[in-house]
């Protein structure tokens, strides 16, 4: 919190970001109240969750998926779409 941010004279006008890909630096994972948890034994690797995830926060592994918690906002779409109920939303503990 003690980071000193630049003043209005030294930032680009109009809120323009000069470098692409800055969203990667903004970790939205701490927004979530519910954490999707994948039961890797149940997961059939159908990748419906990977398709539906609005934040591209599903990682594809060889035989199953897991969740990138740095960016997952906990919306629960993956759990809702999973045809084999391999994903459960559990309360996020901080």
């Amino acid at each position: 919190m003690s980071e000193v941010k630049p003043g209005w004279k030294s930032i680009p006008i109009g809120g323009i970001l000069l470098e692409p890909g800055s969203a990667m630096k903004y970790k939205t994972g701490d927004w979530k109240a519910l954490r999707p948890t994948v039961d890797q034994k149940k997961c059939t690797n159908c990748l419906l969750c990977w398709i539906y995830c609005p934040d591209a926060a599903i990682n594809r592994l060889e035989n199953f998926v897991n969740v990138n918690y740095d960016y997952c906002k906990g919306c629960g779409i993956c759990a809702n779409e999973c045809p084999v109920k391999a994903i459960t939303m559990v309360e996020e503990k901080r």
Partner: protein
Amino acid sequence: MSRIMGLTGNEAIAYAVKQSNVDVVAAYPITPQTIMVEAFSEYVHNGEVLTEFVCVESEHSAMSACVGASLTGARVFTATASQGLALMHEMLYIASGLRCPIVMGVANRALSAPINIHGDHSDMMGSRDCGWIQIYAENNQEAYDWVIQAFKIAEDPKVLLPVSVNIDGFIVSFSMEGVEVLEDDEASKFLSMRKPVLTISPDNPITVGALCLPDYYFEMKRQQVEALKESYEVIESVTREYKALTGRRYSFIETYGMENAEAGIICLGSTAGTAKAVAKNLRSKGKKVGVIKPWVYRPFPAEEIIRAVDNLKALAVLDRSCSFGAPYGALSSDIIATLYQYGKDLKVFNGIYGLGGRDITPSDIETVFNEALKVAETRLVKESLKFIGVRE
């Protein structure tokens, strides 16, 4: 060299846009602005301009398309009025926030309800805090001249702000006058191609319109304040350069008879023409009256107005819009704040007039001058807010 054309206010703006080599026009028709873009669409149809004309489904879309086009580095124009400007409202802030140097013609018209198509300043005053440079032209010649200058002001790298050029709906928009126009090559020379600073381009990707939370938003707004401040100097230099080309000198304000006036009227747009004519008549009878007409309303020309009222004893501020529930009309509030800021003890009263196109006659103006003269003499303002020409 000088060429005079018979043009209505709307046509004068369309002709100025034609000579400004505009890349994109996106607009939706609305009375009393329609002819601005209708006349321009004929230039497009006839191949007289190379402009991309985007027919959109609403003013909200018009300004959205303008913002997108402007961000690619294009020179962009649109026009609207009244409900159309109100529908554009949220996009006006986006245009200024993203620093898009769009020029917009506005034929000022009353806002509903009740529905009314005639001229008053409620529309632009309703959006006065949108971060745009706001110019009010008195007549067709001024409308033509300001549009050409507006592009140069807007696109200056020190400014990069949108500009609205306002004309009084019907009174100016539909009246035909002789307008002295530039030759196309003269206009092109004065207004060279836009040199954009930061644009969206596949070769050099940038992000525009990203989320900006409490840690940066305020800084962006502070930059906009500075850009309007910087625009003073740019407006000054552009108007000087325009005078060298045309002989017509524009500035932040125009004054008439203010050198020795004791009582003055300050007002925007076409009413200033009536006021000057009445002042001329009264001055010939020995009455010391004068007129101040701000051409530029935003940024507010505080110093110029303070200089102009130096010898004045009483000032009537005429507002063609009503700030309901506020102590005074918009222009009047700005004037009173400015006088207070500069420690100027000038007696002021505010007249709200002409709503919904209600005519303001020379005798109305004469009454205001006489009241101001009385205030100058007695140093007493009996009624600080009055409504001129309304039936009791």
